[in-house]
């Protein structure tokens, strides 16, 4: 039987989204069902069942998951133990001597492994890789047994300087595997062979902390899929925007920390590039936050590390996402100096905005949109009706009265300050990093972003906005689009002048071989394979490194030894790009080697999503909407608009998963893929 269906599933906090693509016909279907808790597999299977009867026809199921993120944020990982170098049991707890907030000196930190489950053994490696003290394996075994007796379900071996020589860690892991009752034994040099002990230990410990839960959850999903006749590949989206096989995810669950949002950014990049906009800034507006990412030339920027919460550092490449606390549920309030603020406190999705009638009495950004008529109180996302009078009363009491504004003025003020904060986040990722916003289009996704798209054009000077056809299921769509990607790192720590380039070539070759093995084992059909090599380099004396793309020559799967002149030239080009000018006579150093091995997956044609036929271009109705003043706005059904249709503001386009506001002076055009391109009239 021909398996031609691909399914993307994104499990979010409120909804589980499913995107189904039939590659044979090019047809796509979507489903949105409530997320089930605590076990998300119920909603996962229900969402698929809503669109697909026979799992036997499914070639692949790709999952963007928040299981790992939630376990970290809610501290619901497993009880685990740590075995570490004598003298260093407290590294995880001491962090890098930071504090949660600059001002106030309040707040403590609980590491995910309590102190009595962090045991020390005699061993020591020096910075140059010399073993100063061989590991005491009897002590390792005793520590392992003690942790098992204490109920630990995973163990992490964290030795100082193991990035420079993993021998002691390897010996300890081998001894532990003989006695540990499950597969959850890992060392810091296996997970992240990179210098900086806190970051490496933290990443390894958080991986162990997630492993029992996440691997259990993924195993349940896999069993449920198989039980219903599924025989294709089951893949998981990583924080770097690539997918991995499910068994890799079970071994490296920490790589799923930003799985869901990363899938959304990948889809946004693909949709925009297909539509002719390789440079975009995405804005995902949820209940409590606004997440922004920059995509240049079709590529999302990657951050080397992220703090999931204070002291919870994960160092693996992740799609760079800048978050500010300004979502639809963010609360508007006036401070003691008489200034209007938005957030960071949020009513979230529960109890939610005042108009939801679930007990919140303080006005939110969504309440302002409702009061201004921008959201239809009789047809909100998720159904039901909204209490406009309650929203008006809350805005009057908390904003209008203290600032002496009438209800509409107060609501407009809330929107304006919220827009200014969102615009600030966009400037942060664009202007502050040297990108000209005029070059970029804005792509809102999630439920709320499209109400603010016009304002972002005006505030930041972005050229246009592109609103995908199904903004509410962007992350699920991204699951189907993402390539398979494996990232590797190895600390080199050598002067460029004297570095052993043959040894460097051998390290690259190891990464390529390991990556190829993982791609082969996944059983996925690839359209092509790519290897990307980068060196982290700096002038001696600098502590921040520059990421230096290194051109490599591949013959088959064999890499040619890189030449020193190439490395120097690549560094100079990268440094000049970042800082403008080189340091004359400066001596440089190679700190880390990073390799990405990518299996590109066949892309589907987004035209499959485009509307067909003549459609409907006449307004469904008209409604009073406040945009500076009350105006009579046309209300249209977005999904019925045909390709080529143009709607000029003032207008509101409605669809089940979002609302699009077109202000006076703006117009929206439906492109060949069904996206709405929003721009200033005549632009």
């Amino acid at each position, binding site marked *: 039987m021909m398996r031609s269906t691909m399914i993307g599933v994104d499990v979010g906090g409120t909804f589980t989204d499913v995107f189904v693509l039939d590659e044979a016909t090019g047809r796509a279907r979507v489903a949105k069902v409530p997320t089930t808790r605590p076990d998300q597999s119920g909603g996962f299977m229900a969402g698929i069942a809503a669109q697909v009867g026979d799992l036997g026809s499914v070639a692949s199921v790709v999952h963007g998951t928040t299981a790992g993120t939630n376990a970290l944020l809610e501290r619901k990982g497993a009880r685990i133990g740590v075995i570490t170098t004598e003298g260093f049991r407290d590294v995880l707890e001491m962090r890098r001597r930071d504090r949660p907030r600059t001002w106030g000196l309040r707040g403590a930190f609980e590491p995910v492994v309590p102190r009595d489950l962090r045991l020390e053994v005699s061993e020591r490696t020096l910075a140059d890789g010399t073993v100063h003290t061989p590991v005491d394996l009897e002590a390792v075994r005793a520590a392992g047994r003690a942790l098992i007796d204490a109920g630990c379900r995973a163990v992490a071996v964290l030795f100082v300087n193991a990035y420079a020589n993993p021998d002691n860690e390897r010996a300890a892991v081998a001894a532990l595997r003989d006695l540990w009752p499950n597969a959850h034994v890992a060392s810091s040099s296996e997970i992240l062979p990179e210098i900086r002990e806190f970051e490496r230990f933290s990443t390894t410990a958080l991986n162990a902390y997630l492993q029992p839960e996440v691997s259990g959850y993924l195993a349940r999903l896999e069993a449920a899929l198989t039980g219903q006749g599924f025989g294709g590949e089951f893949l998981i989206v990583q924080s770097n925007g690539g997918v991995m096989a499910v068994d890799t995810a079970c071994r490296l669950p920490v790589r799923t920390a930003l799985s869901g949002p990363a899938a959304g950014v990948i889809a946004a990049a693909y949709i925009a590039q297909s539509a002719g906009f390789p440079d975009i800034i995405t804005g995902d507006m949820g209940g409590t936050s606004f997440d922004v990412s920059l995509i240049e030339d079709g590529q999302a920027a990657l951050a080397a590390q992220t703090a999931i919460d204070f002291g919870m550092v994960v160092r693996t490449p992740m799609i760079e996402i800048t978050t500010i606390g300004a979502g639809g549920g963010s609360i508007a309030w006036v401070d003691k100096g*008489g200034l209007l603020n938005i957030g960071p406190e949020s009513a979230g999705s529960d109890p939610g905005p005042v108009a939801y009638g679930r007990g919140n009495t303080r006005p939110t950004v969504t309440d302002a949109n409702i009061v201004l008529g921008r959201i239809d109180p009789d047809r909100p996302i998720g159904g039901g009706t909204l209490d406009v009078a309650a929203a008006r009363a809350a805005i009057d009491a908390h904003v209008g009265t203290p600032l002496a504004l009438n209800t509409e003025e107060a609501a407009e003020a809330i929107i304006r300050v919220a827009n200014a904060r969102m615009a600030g986040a966009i400037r942060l990722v664009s202007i502050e990093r040297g990108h000209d916003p005029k070059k970029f289009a804005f792509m809102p996704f999630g439920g709320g972003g499209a109400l603010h798209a016009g304002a972002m054009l005006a505030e930041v000077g972005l050229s246009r906005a592109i609103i995908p056809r199904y903004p509410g299921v962007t992350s699920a769509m991204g699951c189907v689009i993402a390539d398979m990607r494996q990232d590797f790192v190895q600390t080199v*720590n050598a002067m460029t002048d004297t570095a052993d380039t043959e040894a460097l070539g051998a390290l690259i070759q190891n990464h390529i071989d390991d990556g190829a093995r993982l791609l082969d084992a996944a059983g996925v059909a690839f359209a092509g394979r790519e290897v990307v090599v980068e060196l982290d380099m700096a002038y001696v004396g600098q502590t*921040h490194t520059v990421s230096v793309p290194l051109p490599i020559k591949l013959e088959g799967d064999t890499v040619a030894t890189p030449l020193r002149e190439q490395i120097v030239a690549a560094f100079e080009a990268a440094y000049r790009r970042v800082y403008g000018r080189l340091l004359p006579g400066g001596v440089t150093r190679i700190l880390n080697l990073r390799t990405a091995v990518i299996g590109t997956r066949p892309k589907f044609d987004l035209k499959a999503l485009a509307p067909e036929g003549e459609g409907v271009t006449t307004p469904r109705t008209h409604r009073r909407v406040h945009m500076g003043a009350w105006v009579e706005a046309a209300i249209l059904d977005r999904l019925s608009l045909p390709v080529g249709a143009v709607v000029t503001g003032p207008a509101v386009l409605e669809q089940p998963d979002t609302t699009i506001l077109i202000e006076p002076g703006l117009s929206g055009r439906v492109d060949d893929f069904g996206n709405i391109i929003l721009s200033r009239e005549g632009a």
Partner: protein
Amino acid sequence: MTIDPITLAVLAGRMEQIADEMDATLFRSAFNPIIAEAHDASHGLYHASSGETLVQGKSGLPIFVGVMAFAVKAVIDKSARDGDLSDGDVYIFNDAHIGGTHLSDMRLVRPYFHDGAVFCHLASVGHWHDVGGAVPGNYNPRATEVFQEAFVLPPVKLMRGGVLQQDVVDIVLRNTRLPASAQGDLNGQINALDLGARRLDALLAEYGAETVRAALDALSDRAETMTRAEVSALPDGRWEAIDCLDNDGITDRELPIKVAIEIRGDRLALDFTGTAGATAGPVNISHGTAVACVYVAIKHIFPGLPANAGVMRPIDVTIPPKSLLSAEFPAPTGGYTETILRMIDVIFSALSQAVPDRVVANAYGTINALSLAGHRADGRRWVMFSFYGGGHGGSPEGDGLNHGNAPISTATIPPVEILESAYPVMFRQWALRPDSAGAGQHRGGLGAVYEIELLEQSAEAFLFGERGCHAPKGVAGGGEAALNRFAYENAGTWHTPPMVSKMVGIHLKKGERVRLETPGGGGYGPARARDATAVARDVRLGYLSAEGADAAYGHDWRKGQA
């Protein structure tokens, strides 16, 4: 012109972003880890004629938030005297007696012109790795004049009309042990100022100078209003507190720092009369630094206040003349960090009597600037210079943070692996220090133990620390934390310095060690109010020994053992 509150909110965010972006530019491109890793730097916008802080970056060093105003004022006075200011001029200086803090902090001030007149000032300050003087890294506890701490540069023009004055650069770079590092940091600071000017150009073009000026005025007024509102909520009255520095590094005599805080309606007065006189050794601070330090304490107590000079309008600060809080040239100020940390401690202790629910207990209170320096076998010089951490005080909400950074700083500590790969040392221990926290209903956070072994043939160690004789205090009935301890190994025996936590020129041979044990934070609330299960947990996790628990909490904690 008045400005509507919404435009004001938008402009406030835009200008804060300019300062933040200047911070980020220097952090990324700096050559020295004290700026790049520890973020010991700051940027902001300052008033055209008064020099007062208008806007400051969020990520810079907290103490600079207030002190830079004095540095900018010094430049304003200088250019008024000289009468030769033109667009594109940039001043550079490190003179602590007119710009605050200590000589390691290099300041660049750029008058920003709009329509032919100074609209505001842009300034950049960063802690350079070495600026000459007797001790590598410039923490010299034996200094009795600034000249033994570093070379002193008064405000001079680094740029004239946008043209770099290479002769000034040459003088500066000839006076440091680490010219490459200094050059890298200088370039980074110039770039940060350039970037600030470009961003301001765009902002003024977009909103107009009048609107931006009105916004700046309104933001200061608003900060004043907010401060008055916060102070009004406090009870009227007068409260005092006193604490002591161990010594000045020259004479082993304690140095009291005293404050009397008086609240009347919406005004707050702090009077430091009763504080020790100026000292021979380098724990003096300038008047400007003292005022800026009050600002840091106020911001910690009311974290919601904005970072501009309006905050200080309802606050009166009295600094006694000739005291160690108003040192005059050429008194040494290298250890200013220790003195301002003690000022913050006494402010917290005094206010805790008025509003115990608003104040946290004392943090560990010393930065422990420790240098190890020597030459490698091939003759290359190495200097390992770092600050070390300790515990934060217990708070009304809970226990203090273990191993945090100093309240005047947001600096992170370099990783052991980076230090070991750069310098010939091996850390034997890098751990929390049991029994170092002050007892209390909410105990303090724990301090740390750092033990470092030398791997080369010989080296010298230098330490500048405090809290070796007077422990960090609790508030609201909470207990004191442990004292700072430092010891070094010589020919098989361990020694402690005569000045407890200050010493220069400790000779170390291969295999010998130094050991630093830092204080925790003070406790919050009486020890008897601590839950027995919380004490039992501290004992089980090894934060507290059983004997320590008995002594601090009595024997009842054993009932809390599960």
